Each structure stands twice: as structure tokens, then as C-alpha cells.
């Protein structure tokens, strides 16, 4: 009974289908109490005595050679302790990225402060450290940056320009191919070709970024607070870049005010506060303001595609050939080329596709660097693929629902392996009944009856329509995650995970899984996450991986503790473990008959380090388990929308919306529904409102929340959510697939389809967001 060594590959019993005692139930969250009382600990809430405030001086033009940076005036300002420029941090290497198979990106990484060129408006050029945030901002204003303007590249589809001498703005082309694509087009009944684009938007969490570093000289530990998402990788890289051992760096996660992919990556400011805390020997606090956030935190999504499909006479796909241009912005950030890679790997989605070729041109531009945002590469390619399906339907005169039925991978074909990879793993659709879910969704939405209503409304002069989009998500990115479950001598249960929380309910979900396995009250379990000082390894919270990976590890670790507790109790109670069970933290007879019992606290005390019975063993009622996975689990779903266009204004009202999503198993249906509806709000934002716009010189135009339009409650439709559990994943003991991204994934595609339908012009929408001015133009053009 070694409680600490991992046992890779160990088979844990699977959870029976349907709700358990607490798994599968819509229980309230254990996270909520401090958050509703104003007792949360977000980045800006972290303070240390003697702390300094850092303010970043940012580039004000999109591309230029740095002639000089004059900080003399700033250094003389009241309260200013130091001002740094690139020369002061020349020893800190470029910020790295998490490696994939894509090569050649290293020269395109970002320095913590611009060295000889600035490449986007908002790039850090200098930093001011002062005793007060107001005074730091006053001083930063006086830093004079002299720049010599260079030509800007703003269109990723334009011919590449120069990034640096010897390096053009296309570091790589992501290519994937299988089947005989040329033969597919030669034998096609019809070829459908489209040019499509998705606008630049991003996560824009309500909490901006923040980083507070402190050097604890007594223990020789550098602490970084305000972290999120990827603490262990970030710890290792901060340690390496600053020349410290990883054990001497600890990252702490408090509350995180929304992640969505953009929070918790390693950004220049994280390294700057760490370096400053070490050198200035005072705690250093940096809180991003909103205007900074909109030019400094990762953007996402911007791609343009030139896609062709070869189809037979029945509308069946023979092949897809896509070339796309991925607008990476000014630097390669910590994701490397992941979004382009995911776009290329996930584009085929739910359809049977005999041949496929894609070339993803990964291009740098003079805009804010881009990376992942909820459903990265899928929001974009679902839009592209579903636009293509609608176009095929229109070309061949086939109903848009029918064209999808003919092409969906059938349940009997699962698991369905594609000769493709994404995120370095082979794409094997693990389980699914795609057409079954489509039928359920159409029935629940009342699709056929709605078509008649819409026809009647159109006859009365209204501009109304309906659309659909099918999507396949991915989740549970491996390779591993570990969890340690411990019952202490008071019977309190703690789950320590290498995962992180960005506010999505990780603690509750892991507590439910642990409670189910161990037979304790979920609401009294303490879940520790996002802390490098409590667990040596972790892969964080991204790619909808936490419930799958950390959830499975929690299940296995809690079962191991259960087994340990039952064996101990069996010895003491003179029964066999099989005759015992655990209810509410008490080991009792499983048959319900009266008899002696033992609490988990008593068993934990019996396994204490001073207990004579433990001699020669590792003490404690604890187990650490690691869950390993080579393949991702693929959730899937359907978006359906009914919309109205105000023909006089071009305004779009989403009247009704349904998201149907099969996620294998819902650990907590209430949280799953919350993820889907919240994800949809972001998807609709990208479809109708949100866009980072630039003027022709590369000046950003969306630099306040009055210009970057996030949906309010007034823009949200009535949303119905259909959570399906028809296709549990065979890849993990819980059968779960991730639920974080399905609500977002299909929204752009679905809205485009519905707008086309309302306009009665198939193919009218070729870009996102769909803006009122564009619709007004379409409505006034002769059709």
C-alpha cells in the first residue's frame, strides 16, 4: 500500500452509467461562499508590505526602429525607484513556447522589453517601478521613446514582409494531407469554392491580468502570485529564464476572474515583476489596466480561408482542399503554432472525408500577438466547414439538414481514426452518435414547425431565418495528470491537483468525483489547485482537460484511499473489505445491518506515523494516482438558431437558440449548462459584436470596452441546452469529455447560416462578425 508512487496504466473500475450519489447531480458549488461575500482573492487583492507598483511604457506605433528611450525625467519623479529599458533586462532570454512538431519559430519569440524594434502598438518598451500605482503611471507618461517608423504588415494574406533581417513574416506553413486529393477533385460531380474569414477577437476576461512577485530571502524562494492555467510549466520557464532552480520558485493561484485561454500564459510582465523582485529586493505588483489588456493580452481567431470541396452528385464529400492564413500578430507566444495546427487538424469535424489537404500559412503581422481562445482553431474552422456544407446544399439543391446527414460519421463507424494529428496526437474520434444527436436537437427545437412559422412571418414582411451548425470538440489533452487524495486525522479530505482553476467550477467537480468514490460529503472536501508548492507536477487548466485528466486521476486516487480504508477497517472489525462500505465518512457494513463502525478519522489516526501498526510502511490515509492518456476525447454537438434581421437598421436579434452537446457524462449538469450558456455568449460576441479593429497604420481602434463590444444580458437570446450522455468516452474511467468549449464552438457558423436564411441569400455571409452596416449594404444591394 504505497500511497505515493504513481501506477501508470492501472485500470480503475468505471463508474456505472447514470447519476451516482453525487456525481451527475446539480449540486451547488463549494467555491461560491467567499465570492458572494466579497472575500475572494483575485490578483489585485494580493498585497505585501513595501510593495512597488510596476507600470509598463508601451509602443505607440505598430512597427518602428527604436532610436532612443529617455527615462531621465521619469527617474526624477516622486516615488520612482527604478526605470528599466531593454538594456537592463538584456540577460533575460526571449519568452519560449511549448514545443510541438512545428519547427523554426524560435527567432520570432518576444523579448520581455523591445530590443531594437517595436512590432505592435502596446509592446512593452520600458517599465517604471514606483511606490504607488498613480505615481507609477504619472512617471511612465514621461518616458520618451523615439522611433523611426517602418512599413507595417496588417494583412496576413498579403505577401510576407520582413520580421527581422533574414527572417520573413511566414515562419512556417502547417501542412496536413491524406487520401488522393487530386483524384477527388478530378472525379467530382461538383466543386464548391469559398473565401471566408473570421475577425480578430478574444477572451477578454472581466479581471485583467495581474502579477505580484516577492522574493523570500529567508527561504530563498521567489513567489509569483496572480497566476493561472499553467503554473508548473510557467514555474519551470521562469526559473530557467532567471537562472534559478525550479524548487526555488513557487507560483500561487488565488481566484482567477476568467481565463478563456488568454490568462495564465507566460507574458513579459510576469518575468519583469519576478526579475524586479529579485533585483530591487521589494515585492513588485503589476495590475494590467483595461486599455493595456486590449492591446497586450493575447488576441485570437483571425484567419482567412480559401477552401474547396469536391462532392459527388448526392452531395457526399470526396475531398476538401483548404489554404488558410493565420494572423499571429507580432510575435510567437507560448502556444507556438497551436491554433493554426488545431485549425488544420480539426477542420474536417464530424464528416466522413476520404481526402483532405490543408496548408496553414502562419503569418506574423504588426498587431497584438495571438494565441488560444476558447475553442481555438475550432470556432474558426467550424465556421469555415459549416459554411461549406451550406454552400454544397445550396449548389445541389439539397436541404441543409439532409446534406449533413449524408456526410456525418455514423455511430457504427466509431471509433473513427483519421490519418491526421492535432496537438501532436492522432485524431481518433472516440465515440459518438452524431445523427442521433442531430435528430434530438431538431426535435427539441421544433425545427420543422418553426420552418412553417418562419415562412408565414416572411410572407408578412419579416426578415427571419434559422440556421444550424454541427461541431466536434476535443478535450482531455494528455499526457498525464496527478492527484493526491488525503484523509487527515480529523477526517477532513483534501484533493491536491496539478490542475488550475479559472473559475469554471474545478473544485466542485473534483470534490464530487472524490466524494463519489470515497463516500464522503463533497461540500467538505478541500481542493487545492494551481500551487507549485503543493504538488511537484501539473499540466494545468486548458484544452478542456481538467475534468477528463484530473477528474480521472481524482477518481483513481480516491478509490485507492477507499480501498486502503476498507482494508484497515476490515482488519479491525474482523470482516472482509467486501462486506464494508463508506457512507458519510464512516465505514459500516455494506448490507446495512447494525454492527461496529469506524470513521475515516479513526482509520487515518490508526495509519499515523506514530502508530506501531504502521512500522515499515508509508504512513497516512493517502494515495496519489496519475492518469495517462495518449488520445483526446471528442465531444460533439449541434447549434440551432432562429434570428430576425431588422431590415431598416441591419440589427440582428437572436430570438431562440439551442445548444445540444454530448459530453459523455456530466459530472454536474448545472455546471455543464453554465459552461455551455456562458460559452455561447462568447461565441455570439464573436459572431455579432466583438472585433479588434485597426486603422491602416496599425493603430488599434478597440481600446476601451465602449469600442470592444461584449454582449450584455440584453443581447442574449433565450437559450435551451440539451446535455446528452449517449456516447461516454471509452478513454477514461468516468466516460467524461470536456464541456468547456462546445457552447462557443458553433456559434459563428450557426449565426452565419441563420443570417443567410433570413436574407434568403445562401452564401451571403462570408466573414465574422456579422455587422449591421454590412447587412444594411446587403439589404440595399439588388439580390
Amino acid at each position, binding site marked *: 500500500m504505497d500511497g505515493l508512487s504513481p501506477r501508470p496504466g492501472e485500470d480503475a473500475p468505471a463508474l456505472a452509467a447514470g447519476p451516482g450519489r453525487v456525481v451527475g447531480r446539480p449540486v451547488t458549488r463549494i467555491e461560491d461562499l467567499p465570492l458572494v461575500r466579497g472575500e475572494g482573492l483575485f490578483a489585485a487583492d494580493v498585497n505585501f508590505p513595501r510593495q512597488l507598483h510596476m507600470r509598463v511604457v508601451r509602443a505607440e506605433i505598430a512597427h518602428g526602429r527604436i532610436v532612443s528611450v529617455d527615462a531621465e525625467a521619469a527617474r526624477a519623479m516622486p516615488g520612482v525607484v527604478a526605470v528599466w529599458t531593454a538594456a537592463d533586462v538584456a540577460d533575460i532570454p526571449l519568452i519560449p513556447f511549448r514545443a510541438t512538431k512545428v519547427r523554426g519559430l524560435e527567432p520570432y519569440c518576444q523579448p520581455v522589453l523591445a530590443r531594437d524594434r517595436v512590432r505592435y502598438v502596446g509592446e512593452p518598451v520600458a517599465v517604471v517601478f514606483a511606490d504607488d500605482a498613480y505615481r507609477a503611471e504619472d512617471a511612465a507618461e514621461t518616458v520618451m521613446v523615439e522611433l523611426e517608423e517602418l512599413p507595417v504588415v496588417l494583412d496576413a494574406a498579403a505577401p510576407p514582409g520582413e520580421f527581422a533581417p533574414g527572417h520573413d513574416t511566414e515562419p512556417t506553413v502547417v501542412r496536413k494531407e491524406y487520401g488522393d486529393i487530386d483524384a477527388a477533385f478530378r472525379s467530382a460531380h461538383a466543386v464548391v469554392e469559398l473565401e471566408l474569414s473570421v475577425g480578430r477577437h478574444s477572451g477578454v476576461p472581466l479581471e485583467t491580468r495581474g502579477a505580484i512577485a516577492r522574493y523570500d530571502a529567508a527561504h530563498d524562494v521567489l513567489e509569483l502570485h496572480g497566476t493561472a492555467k499553467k503554473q508548473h510549466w510557467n514555474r519551470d520557464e521562469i526559473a530557467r529564464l532567471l537562472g534559478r532552480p525550479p524548487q526555488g520558485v513557487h507560483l500561487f493561484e488565488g481566484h482567477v476572474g476568467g481565463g478563456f485561454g488568454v490568462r495564465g500564459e507566460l507574458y513579459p510582465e510576469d518575468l519583469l515583476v519576478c526579475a524586479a523582485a529579485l533585483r530591487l529586493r521589494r515585492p513588485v505588483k503589476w495590475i494590467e489596466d483595461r486599455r493595456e489588456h486590449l492591446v497586450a493580452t493575447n488576441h485570437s481567431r483571425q484567419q482567412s480561408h480559401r477552401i474547396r470541396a469536391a462532392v459527388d452528385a448526392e452531395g457526399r464529400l470526396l475531398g476538401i482542399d483548404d489554404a488558410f492564413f493565420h494572423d499571429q500578430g507580432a510575435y510567437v507566444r507560448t502556444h507556438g503554432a497551436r491554433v493554426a495546427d488545431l485549425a488544420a487538424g480539426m477542420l474536417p469535424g464530424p464528416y466522413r472525408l476520404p481526402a483532405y489537404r490543408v496548408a496553414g500559412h502562419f503569418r506574423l503581422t504588426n498587431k497584438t500577438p495571438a494565441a488560444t481562445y476558447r475553442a481555438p482553431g475550432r470556432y474558426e474552422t467550424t465556421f469555415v466547414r459549416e459554411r461549406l456544407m451550406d454552400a454544397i446544399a445550396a449548389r445541389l439543391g439539397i436541404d441543409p439538414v439532409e446534406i449533413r446527414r449524408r456526410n456525418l460519421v455514423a455511430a457504427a463507424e466509431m471509433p473513427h481514426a483519421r490519418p491526421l494529428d492535432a496537438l501532436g496526437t492522432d485524431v481518433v474520434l472516440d465515440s459518438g452518435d452524431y445523427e442521433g444527436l442531430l435528430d434530438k436537437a431538431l426535435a427539441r427545437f421544433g425545427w420543422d414547425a418553426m420552418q412553417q412559422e418562419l415562412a408565414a412571418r416572411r410572407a408578412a414582411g419579416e426578415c427571419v431565418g434559422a440556421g444550424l451548425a454541427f461541431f466536434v470538440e476535443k478535450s482531455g489533452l494528455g499526457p498525464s495528470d496527478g492527484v493526491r487524495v488525503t484523509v487527515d486525522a480529523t477526517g477532513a479530505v483534501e484533493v491536491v491537483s496539478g490542475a488550475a482553476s479559472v473559475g469554471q467550477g474545478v473544485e466542485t467537480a473534483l470534490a464530487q468525483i472524490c466524494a463519489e468514490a470515497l463516500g464522503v460529503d463533497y461540500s467538505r472536501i478541500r481542493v487545492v489547485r494551481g500551487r507549485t508548492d503543493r504538488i511537484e507536477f501539473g499540466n494545468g487548466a486548458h484544452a478542456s482537460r481538467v475534468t477528463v485528466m484530473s477528474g480521472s486521476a481524482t477518481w483513481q486516487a480516491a478509490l485507492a484511499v477507499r480501498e486502503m480504508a476498507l482494508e484497515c477497517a476490515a482488519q479491525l472489525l474482523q470482516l472482509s473489505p467486501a462486506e464494508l462500505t463508506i457512507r458519510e465518512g464512516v465505514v459500516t457494513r455494506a448490507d446495512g445491518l447494525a454492527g461496529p463502525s469506524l470513521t475515516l478519522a479513526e482509520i487515518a489516526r490508526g495509519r499515523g506515523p506514530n502508530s506501531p501498526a504502521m512500522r515499515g510502511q508509508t504512513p497516512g490515509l493517502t494515495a496519489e494516482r496519475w492518469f495517462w492518456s495518449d488520445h483526446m476525447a471528442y465531444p460533439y454537438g449541434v447549434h440551432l438558431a432562429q434570428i430576425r434581421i431588422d431590415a*431598416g437598421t441591419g440589427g440582428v436579434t437572436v430570438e431562440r437558440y439551442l445548444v445540444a452537446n454530448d459530453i459523455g457524462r456530466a459530472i454536474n449538469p448545472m455546471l455543464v449548462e453554465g459552461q455551455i450558456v456562458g460559452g455561447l455568449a462568447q461565441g455570439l460576441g464573436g459572431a455579432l459584436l466583438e472585433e479588434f479593429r485597426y486603422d491602416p497604420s496599425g493603430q488599434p481602434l478597440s481600446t476601451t470596452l465602449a469600442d470592444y*463590444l461584449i454582449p*450584455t444580458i440584453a*443581447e442574449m437570446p433565450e437559450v435551451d441546452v440539451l446535455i446528452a450522455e449517449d456516447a461516454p468516452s471509452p478513454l477514461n474511467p468516468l466516460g467524461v469529455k470536456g464541456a468547456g468549449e462546445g457552447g462557443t464552438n458553433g456559434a459563428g457558423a450557426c449565426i452565419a447560416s441563420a443570417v443567410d436564411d433570413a436574407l434568403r441569400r445562401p452564401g451571403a455571409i462570408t466573414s465574422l462578425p456579422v455587422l449591421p452596416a454590412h447587412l444594411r449594404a446587403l439589404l440595399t444591394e439588388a439580390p
Partner: protein
Amino acid sequence: MKPPPFHYHAPRTEAEALALLAELAPEEGRILAGGQSLVPAMALRVARPSHLIDINGLPGLDRLEVGDGQLRVGPLVRHAMIRRESVPGPLGALLDKVRGHIAHLPIRTRGTVCGSLANADPASEWCLVAATLGGAMLARSMRGDRMIAAEDFFQGFMTTALEPDELLAGLHLPVLPEGTRWGFHEFSRRAGDYAQAASLAVLEMRAGTIAAARIGIGAVEDRPRRLPEAEALLTNRAPTADLLRQAAAEARATLLPTDDDPTRPALAETVIRRALADAAGIELP
């Protein structure tokens, strides 16, 4: 996004406030009323007043009074204080409707009507109301009071006829006679956002014909203004769907939008047509 430093003044009387303003205006001194436009501008450091003269503590400036056929809106009347029950007749109903389009609840509880007028954003609903109804602004300084008619007050994008030492001490609006018909329509991207086009139409009806028409457009040109060609077209005519459509089309042809969105005139035509239709009680898409 912390505001730049400034000297803060909290005068106890209006006279003291005017004296401070006279003294400090040459040094970029400004009045602080609701602050719902000025403070964000300071947070963005695009406004950098060296002195703020806070009038929020001054007694008697939050009066909403009716007399001599006029509604007088004091400088500390918050958006939220404009309610149907506080102003008689059609004007009360009109202002109540317009208030509902101004920003959001917490902004309405703090921001002031006169502050919006002094800020003169071309998309401001109160500026449109003042321009359309022929309102007048009471400008007050140590030098005395003067009334400025709306058509003289709004001078361009966020520019007014107020002198730096003048406090906007009131908006005067004519009380509309019973039976006056009105319609207001605007289009914005999201609830509470500044409009992309807004129109107010006010019709005085006599025996089934339009005796007098006032039509205003906001958020399209650099300032709100009336549309005399369309007004003339309607006067002494019976309102029909065709006539209203024609008037809106006529108005559109006279617009000089400040942005390069080629569909802005069409949007303006829509809001004008709808404001007119609401005023005339005619269903018109």
C-alpha cells in the same frame, strides 16, 4: 488608467463656484457635475483638468421646474430624475422615453442632463431633444447670465458655445401642448450604447393635418440638428405612410455624415421614418 492629478474644490455656494471658475478657467479648471463622461476621459488621460470645481454639494441645483410654458432643468438634475410624473403632458412622456435610452441605471443615477449637453457628444439623446424642441441653455458666469438657443449652442463635435468661465446653469424646454404627437427612435449596437443614429419627431396636429413639425437627427453629423426640408414637406399635410416615407427620404438626402460608412444615411432614414411613424400613429416598418 488612474486619473492625472488635479486640485479639488468644493464650493458651498453657486457664487463661490462661479468665482472659482472665473479664476481657474484659464488654468484648465472645469466643473465636475455627474462626472460620467469627464471621469472616464480623465482615466484615459485624454482630459487633464488642473482644477475640478465640484458642484454636487451645491443646494438647489437639482430642481426640475415648470412655469411660463417652460420646463427648467437645473444643472444637477440626474438623468434618472427625468420621469413621466415629474413633467406634465406629452413632454413628460417624451422625456421619460428618451431617458430609458441613456446608458445604464448606475450612469443615470449619477450623470446629469446639463452635463450631457455641455459634453455635446453628437450621439447624446439630450442634445437631440434640445436641438429638436428648440431648447435654450442658460449660461451663467461672473459676467452674468445669457440664454443660448440650441442651434447656436451646439457648434460641432463635442464643442459648444459655452465660454470656459461659464456654468451651464439650466436647460429650458418648451412644454408641449396636450395633443402634441411625438416619436423617438434610435439604433445602437448594444443596449445602452451611444446611438449610431437617433431621431425625434414632434407633430402638432390640427384637424387631421400636421400644423407644425419638428424633426431632429442625432449621431449622424457632428452635432444634432433639425431637418427643415422634411419639416416643410409635412407641414399642412395629412400624415400618410407615403408622405412620411417621402419626408424621411427627403431628410436623408440632406445629411452629411461624419463617418465613411456608406450605409449611415440609410440608417438615418430608417430612424427618422420610424420616429415620424410613431408620432403620427402610423405603422411603418
